[in-house]
């Protein structure tokens, strides 16, 4: 009993001296609580109120993608910090340091593999999330900005994966990054942005330093910022209902229902990451040799559709025009909520939109295939 009193005393002691409420509300802004804290009440009461507040059930699978993103990002930051303890961003030392981390430090391999799989999962989850936004019409008014934030998060995670690849300096990632840079080089606007931030299309000391800086500081902060905008948007507008579900679900209190569900999800995601890290570890390649391209190198998988698109058409259509087409398609996707302004959200009323979406997905799949099988795309272009 005495101990309890002491802990109570500590919180009130702290509350008198620092703005504990503000500190707590910053943390809770990133999805810990569904509703806002009432700042007029003392912290304990406010938390109690929030905990008891009823929330729509999160347990429906399409609606947990956002929270998975947050959890994965949390794992990425955690493992990233641990990797940064030993990593040195230098053209001569990077490879050796990565080797040291994976080979010679305790559980270094584990941290590295979790970071690798975490980044891939993050991109996959964000792609599925954007697809679900489209499928359920979540981008319709008043959630237009949620769509844009979703796209921004996806783009940021792809950039992070690309920059992270440059840092490894092994044979596979080095040449894969060069392939990716070749794509970026051909896309107008994007190439200016790339040149401004990374300073050139080669991979040298300057590239490594800049890539490292953006990878560990600016981009995670930006990611966090968009995550916050996303969560605060959801808090403001509420979770979107699935359009064709007429029966309204029973609301559940945040604590213990929702809180423990989140905890279980955190454990399961960690379990999946660990399983992939142990069963399917990414191999460790030889150091990069800038004068020798190993055969069969492809850009990062997230660039494959664009790579395939270029491989298929670059002999027939100038690369500049192909680049413009890419930019155009990206702009159409980004500003979709302002193009498709009808408020209908049900499947039957959006047949054209769904049809275009499916065609787009098929094309993405097809271009990815052509990206992987370059010889097929080359033989097709040779026909023309």
């Amino acid at each position, binding site marked *: 009993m005495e101990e309890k009193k002491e802990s109570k005393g500590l919180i009130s002691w702290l509350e008198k001296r620092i703005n504990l409420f503000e500190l707590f509300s910053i943390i809770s802004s990133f999805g810990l609580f569904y509703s806002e804290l009432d700042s007029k009440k003392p912290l304990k009461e406010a938390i109690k109120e929030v905990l008891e507040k009823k929330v729509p059930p999160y347990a429906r699978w399409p609606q947990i993608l956002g929270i998975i993103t947050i959890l994965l990002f949390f794992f990425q930051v955690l493992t990233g910090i641990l990797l940064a303890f030993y990593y040195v961003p230098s053209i001569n030392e990077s490879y050796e340091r990565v080797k040291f981390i994976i080979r010679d430090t305790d559980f270094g*391999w584990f941290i590295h593999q979790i970071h690798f799989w975490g980044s891939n999962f993050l991109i996959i989850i964000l792609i599925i999330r954007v697809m679900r936004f489209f499928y359920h019409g979540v981008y319709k008014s008043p959630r237009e900005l949620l769509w844009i934030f979703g796209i921004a998060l996806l783009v940021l995670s792809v950039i992070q994966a690309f920059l992270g690849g440059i840092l490894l300096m092994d044979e596979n990632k080095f040449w894969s990054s060069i392939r990716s840079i070749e794509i970026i080089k051909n896309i107008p606007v994007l190439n200016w942005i790339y040149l401004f931030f990374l300073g050139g299309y080669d991979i040298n000391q300057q590239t490594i330093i800049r890539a490292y800086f953006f990878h560990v500081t600016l981009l995670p902060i930006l990611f966090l910022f968009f995550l916050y905008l996303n969560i605060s948007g959801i808090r403001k507008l509420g979770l979107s209902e699935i359009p064709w579900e007429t029966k309204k679900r029973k609301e559940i209190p945040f604590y*213990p229902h929702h809180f423990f569900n989140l905890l279980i999800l955190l*454990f399961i995601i*960690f379990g999946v990451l660990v399983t992939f890290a142990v*069963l399917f570890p990414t191999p460790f*390649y030889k150091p990069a040799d800038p004068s020798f391209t190993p055969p069969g190198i492809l850009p990062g998988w997230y660039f494959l559709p664009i790579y395939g698109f270029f491989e298929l058409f670059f002999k027939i259509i100038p690369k500049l025009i192909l680049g413009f087409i890419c930019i155009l398609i990206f702009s159409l996707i980004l500003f979709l909520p302002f193009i498709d302004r009808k408020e209908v959200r049900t499947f039957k009323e959006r047949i054209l939109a769904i049809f275009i979406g499916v065609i787009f997905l098929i094309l993405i799949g097809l271009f990815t295939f052509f990206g992987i099988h370059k010889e097929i795309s080359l033989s097709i272009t040779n026909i023309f």
Partner: protein
Amino acid sequence: MHTFLLVSFFAIQNFCLLCHSDVRVLYNESIHSKEGIECVGCHGGNPFSDDISDAHRKNFKGKIKREEIPSLCSTCHSDPQKMKPYNLPSDQYHLYLNSPHGKLLQKGNKDVAVCTDCHSTHDILSSDNPKSPAYIKNVPQTCSNCHSDARLKNKYNFPSDPYKEYMESIHAKSLLMLGNLGSPECTGCHGAHGAAPPGLGDVNKVCGHCHSKTREYFLESAHRVSLEKSGFPECSHCHKNHIIEKADINMFDIVCKNCHSSDSPAFLAGQKLKTMFLQSQQEIDKAKVLIEKAEKIPIAVEDYKARLEEGNTYLIEAQPVMHTLSEEKVEDLTRKSRSIGEEIQLELYGKFAQLRVRKIGLIFFWFYLMLTVVLIYQYKRFLIKNKSGKNI
């Protein structure tokens, strides 16, 4: 005025090139031109006169007769004092006169090679110059000008086409494709100015210039005596002469049969050497594959790589040692190599087994993870039950 300009322009050179403009282009490129050896040095005459009859008077030799070329060149190239500054030997003429080429020339045969056939005439370049026909990589082609010539082949009954054979050999591949200038061309075995085919008993000595260890081992073997007795040219009896192929362990199956029947003790002894070598090579190869696999994980393999190198060195050493035909000596090396290969494999398999612990650990991990999840779920249900009980 014009004549004055023309004269002053050529004053530093010579007037010969004024008329012989076709030669001028070739000559200006030559090493002789760069070292200041002018036309008069070989052809005589007066280089300071622009009058044809005057220029062609004083000791003028005109076009040098083919049979006189070696002795003409030797006037400078056999003079040690003149050759010393250029670090060139002065015994080439003597060597040439004693070579089959020189001897035949002295007998009046004009088909044989003289200096200009290999070094060219006016555009003589240093033999270090890749453009020179005497440059190491160009020698096979230069020799083939005569030795693959259909007319000469028929006239002198050359037994084969050495150029064609050489081009298929390991020596040619090493020299021309890999750029290994230590690999021999024609002159490497036959000599340059004293070019002659090695005598029957001398083949091992010639091959031994480069393969010195192999020769040492061969001299210890029973083959040496028997080949000498039978009058076969040692090394080339198994490895052939111009068409020398890459020495391969499978030669034991083919070459040995030329003299030994396949059930003879000698043939079986050869097979034993082959088996010993192959077993070691297999172990070394397996170790190499495992090291590559370990590197990708990555496991520290620097030490294994160094040991693999050691094992490989024993294996490389075992190849010339095979020429001794001594089972004991070959076994000593192959056993060392094999045991290194096996050791590396054993240790790496041990490390891979340690990695398997990770996978086994995954089962325990999931067990405890699911246990935690179930406990959390139960606790959640307990809290809900308690809450709803209180509410009631």
